[in-house]
Each structure stands twice: as C-alpha cells, then as structure tokens.
C-alpha cells in the first residue's frame, strides 16, 4: 500500500517534483585559453528532513537538500567546485569522473573539517551520467546520511561527428534537447533507526512522492531519465517500467545504447545510467515505475508517469 499523509516540502526546503528537472549549471566564465570555466558552489550542512510523512531524519546534506544538487556540465569544460563545510563532521566531495589524485575527495585529498573550504578542479570528462558523494569515514554513514548527488556531463557534439545529432539531443540548452522530457532520479534509502537496514526507500528522498503526485509526461515527446543508485546496506537496486520498454546507456558514457528494448535494469551502489523511452504509441494513462525488489517498492520507492496528450 502506501504511506499515510503528506510530507511538508516547504519545511524540507525542497520539492521532489521540482527536483526532477532542477539542474545546477553553476556560473560560466571564459578561461584565457578560450575554454569554458564552470564554477559550482556547494556547502555541506546538517539538516533534519522529512523523508516520509511524519518521519524525520537527521541528514547530512549538500546545499540543504537530499540528494544534493544535480550538477550538469558539458564535456571538455574546466570545472571548479567550491566546497564549504558548514556541517558538524568532516566531509568531502568525491566525484566519479577523471581527475587527479589531489582532487579525489578522500582523506588527505580534499577532505575538509567543519568550517573549512576546498576547491576541486578538473576537466569535465568522460561524458555520461555520474555521481558525487562524500568519502569521509565511516563511509557507510556519510553516504546513507544523505551526502550524494547526480553529476551529469553532456557530450560535446563537436567531438562526436558520427553521432552529432544524438550528442546534441543530450546537451542541455540545445533545441534538440528541448524536444526531450528529461528527469534526474537518485534512488536512495534511509536507515531511520540506525540498525544497518533501511526503513524507507525512495527516488529523490521522499517515499511515495511520485505515486501520490505522478510525473506528467507529454505523450508526443521522448523521455530521458538520468538514473543513479546510492542505496546503502542493500547490494542492489533496480528500475522497472510498466507497459513499455526502454533503451539503456550504462553510465551514460556511450551515444548508442548498451542495452536495447528492456523493461528492467539493475544497479549496484554508485552504478548509474541513462534510460530513453517514448509513450508516443501508447494511450494516455498512469504507467507505474518501481524497482523489482518488491520490498523496496512497498517501503516507499514507487512512482507513476501520468501520460497525457500534449496541451498547447
């Protein structure tokens, strides 16, 4: 069934429905050599959040939200992430990407104490659907307390002449990209009684958020989901779409699908990928999506796509 009541999004300071399309693109400037420099500012903060109606969780957050901001850049850009730790414990930002050891966000390399600041700098590569998370010890606790977020690098169409159109459709801000309905989903879970097992499962933190408030899809436009799994304690998570099949791009690092025509994919922790599908041929209605671990589904991780005719 379903959790009883509603979560106070205002008190949380974030709305799961808005989070789906809330990309953090930072501020852009030009480097002397003509390259783009993209700067993100991220703070670590302790914050109590409501993860299911009435259930409060003492979270550790990036920018006051769980998951942290969905950072989005384009392949080849220089990235600068100014990280400030306003939390009560040491924290870091460990990016899944290609970077120097000094920038790895592990103890001794970018892990900072409360009140300190660190600037991570590296090139945006490889393109794909990635993530970042805190790598302070104990690792399990720092991850399950809420310190993670999506990190998407769009392919630079100029570098992929053979798949230029596809690359263009993936690059935020292009007319081709505007034709898509893109969503970011971070599959997470919370161990509210700290016994090493999760009591609440979700995408983007709030249990049953998209079951109670379905995600509206226009039937005519294709759908792209940036899916990241960060669930702690359980070895595996999955995504199953009802009434439809999708193409899957494992870790998003290719422009041709790594799996074609599937309705279920599995991800271990930190595994991620891009799902592409369309409801063009479907009749409008509610199409469910959930992991095919029934337990996770019944503990909060389930949602609905509300496929509607395009309204002009």
């Amino acid at each position, binding site marked *: *069934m*379903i*959790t*009883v009541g509603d979560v106070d999004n205002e008190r949380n300071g974030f709305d799961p429905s808005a989070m789906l399309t809330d990309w953090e693109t930072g501020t852009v400037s030009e480097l002397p050599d003509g390259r783009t420099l993209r700067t993100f500012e991220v703070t670590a903060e302790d914050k109590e959040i409501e993860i*299911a*109606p*009435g*259930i*409060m*969780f003492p979270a550790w957050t990036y920018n006051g939200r769980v998951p942290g901001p969905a950072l989005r850049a384009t392949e080849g850009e220089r990235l600068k992430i100014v990280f400030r730790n306003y939390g009560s414990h040491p924290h870091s930002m460990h990016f899944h990407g290609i970077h120097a050891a000094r920038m790895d966000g592990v103890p001794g390399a970018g892990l900072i104490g409360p009140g300190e600041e660190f600037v991570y700098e590296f090139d945006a590569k490889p393109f794909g659907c990635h993530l970042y998370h805190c790598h302070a010890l104990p690792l399990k606790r720092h991850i399950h307390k809420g310190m993670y977020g999506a990190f998407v690098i769009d392919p630079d169409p100029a570098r992929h002449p053979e798949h230029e159109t596809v690359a263009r459709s993936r690059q935020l801000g292009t007319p081709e990209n505007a034709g898509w309905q893109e969503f970011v989903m971070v599959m997470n879970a*919370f161990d*509210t*009684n700290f*016994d090493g097992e999760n*009591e609440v499962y979700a995408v983007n933190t709030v*249990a*049953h958020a998209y079951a109670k408030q379905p995600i509206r899809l226009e039937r005519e436009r294709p759908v792209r989901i940036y899916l990241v799994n960060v669930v702690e304690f359980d070895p595996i998570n999955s995504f199953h779409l009802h009434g439809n099949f999708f193409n899957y791009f494992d870790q998003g690092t290719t422009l041709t699908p790594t799996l074609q025509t599937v309705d279920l994919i599995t991800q271990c922790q930190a595994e991620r990928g891009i799902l592409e599908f369309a409801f063009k041929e479907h009749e409008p209605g509610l199409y469910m999506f959930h992991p095919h671990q029934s*337990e996770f589904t*019944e*503990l*909060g991780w389930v949602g609905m796509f509300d496929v509607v005719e395009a309204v002009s």
Partner: protein
Amino acid sequence: MTDIARSSVEPVAGAPVARRGRAYLLWIVVPLAVLGLAIAWLVAADPLSGFRNGAPPVEKLTFERTILGTDGIRLLLRAGGSEPMTIAQVQVDDAYWQFTQDPPGAIARSGTVWIHLPFPWVVGEAHAIRVVTNTGATFDHEIPVAVPTPTRDSLSFVSQGLLGAFVGLLPVAIGLMFYPVLRGVGRNGMNFLLALTVGLLAFLLIDAFGDALELAGEAAAIFQGPVMVVLVAAASFLLLMAVGRRQGTPSGLALATFIALGIGLHNLGEGLAIGASFAAGAAGLGTFLVLGFTLHNITEGIGIAAPILKIRPPLWSFAGLTLLAGGPAVIGLWIGSLA
C-alpha cells in the same frame, strides 16, 4: 527501664502538649516546604539544561492487544518514554500500510491508542508489524500464527463456560470422588498421595512464577511488572494466611475449605490465562493442552479431600468444595476472554 522510656514519650501536662503538637506540625511542614522549594527551583531555574546534549527523547511502545478480524488488524498500543510519542507510519511485513489511529495525534506518556490496519492477513501464517515513530525509531510486534480473534457472542460465552467447567470443576469433582477409596489407603498411602500433590504444587509455583515474570516483562514499563508479580504474590499469601490462621491452625472441614479457596484462586488464574489467550487470538489450545490442565487438577481434589478423611462431612459440603475450587476457572475464563 520501661518507666524511663515511657516517661520520655508520654507528655506530662496539658500546656506543653499543644506546644509540642505545634512543634510536630512544624517539623512536618518544614521538610516538605524545603522539598517544595527544591522542586520549584529545579523547574524554574532549569539547572539540568547543561546536561541536555541533543539526544532524542527515549521512546517506548508496548503492544497490549492484537485483534484479527474481517476488517484487518487492530492493535492496542501503550506509549512510555520521556515525552509524548507520535506514530508516523506503520509497516506490515515490510510494507507501509494505510492505517488510522484512534484517538489521533501524539500519545501521552502511558497513554493508549488503537491502530487499525485494513490489512488482508492470511490465516495460519505469520505477520510482522513495525511501527515507525516521527524520530524514525521502530517498534516491532510479531503475530506468530494469524487466526481470527474470537468474538464475544453468547455461543462463545457458553462454550467458554463449558471449557472452564472441564478444566476446573470436572477434575476437582473427580479428585473428590476418590474420597471413599482414600479413607482406606492408610497413613502411608495418604502420605504418598499428599507428597505427590505438594510436589506438583511446588512445580506449579516455580513454573507459574517464571511465566508470570516473563509476561510481566512484556508489559509496559510503567506497570513495573516483575515487582508487581512478587508483591501481589506476597500480599495474597499473607492475606490467605491471615484469614486462615485467624482462629488458630485450622483442621478438618475448615482446612479443606481453605485449601479449596487457595486452589480456587489458582484456577481463577488458570481460567484467566486460557481466556486471555483466546482474546489475544493466540488460542492454539489443543485438546492435549486442555487435557493436561484437567489431569493435573485432579490431584487438587485429592488435596482437598485429605483433611476431611477422618470426619464424615455432609454430602453438600463436597459440592460446595468443588464449586469453591473449580468454579473460579469458569469465571476466570470469561473475564480473561473479555479483557
């Protein structure tokens, strides 16, 4: 010595009596006033604020009753902890489930609420309930074997009465029916039978105490279960002793009556236990269990018969003794199943 002691206690004249009375009163008022002031200071000045370390409140939740019916599962919960508790969600078998709480809102310390879950439970299978509070703390309750909780209709009232009679009245009557034989077994034979009875009762004492303490441990902390068990047991023992020895050591029919009374109390408890297990929906009472209860109660009849072997009491007294010793089982069963 006695004189000196007495003179120091007894007042000698009228005037000092009043003064001393006032002094006594003063010495009752002063310590109480100091206590009152201390409490007022503790509340007003809050000197303990320095100890407050941001720890979440202590929470405790006791599952007092479980009712399985056609409309789902009903649970009676009692809160206990440092502050009122709020139930946020309820899981059944690792799935969040719709529920209603009556009365709604936070549960005061030692307060109770009913939770109703429209859950399609399965007969004969196990279910696990998990209550999640607003702090994320969890409290678990297991339903080992789900069976419908008996409803209180006249049919079950009669059948429960019959069961009570079978467990309580019948065995005592059977035991007393040995009366003519017992008159002939002689002193050694009687000693053997009594030793058997005493041994059995000693076993029951230890067994019942263990059970009582275990059950008390499951009760809400506010009832101080284990202490209650010991105190109630001691109090009943003293009460029975006081009543029984009021006119010296009893013998004959009087002794038999007291034994019957004690056994009646024991059977009341037995009836309560069976009735409560009915009410709790845990009535997996097999034929053999009932038979066991019945068989061990036969020795009770023998125990009652022992003191009256040398006298010939009227026949009605046998009926009275049977009712006194066995009847409470019926009453216990009714009360237990109504609880």
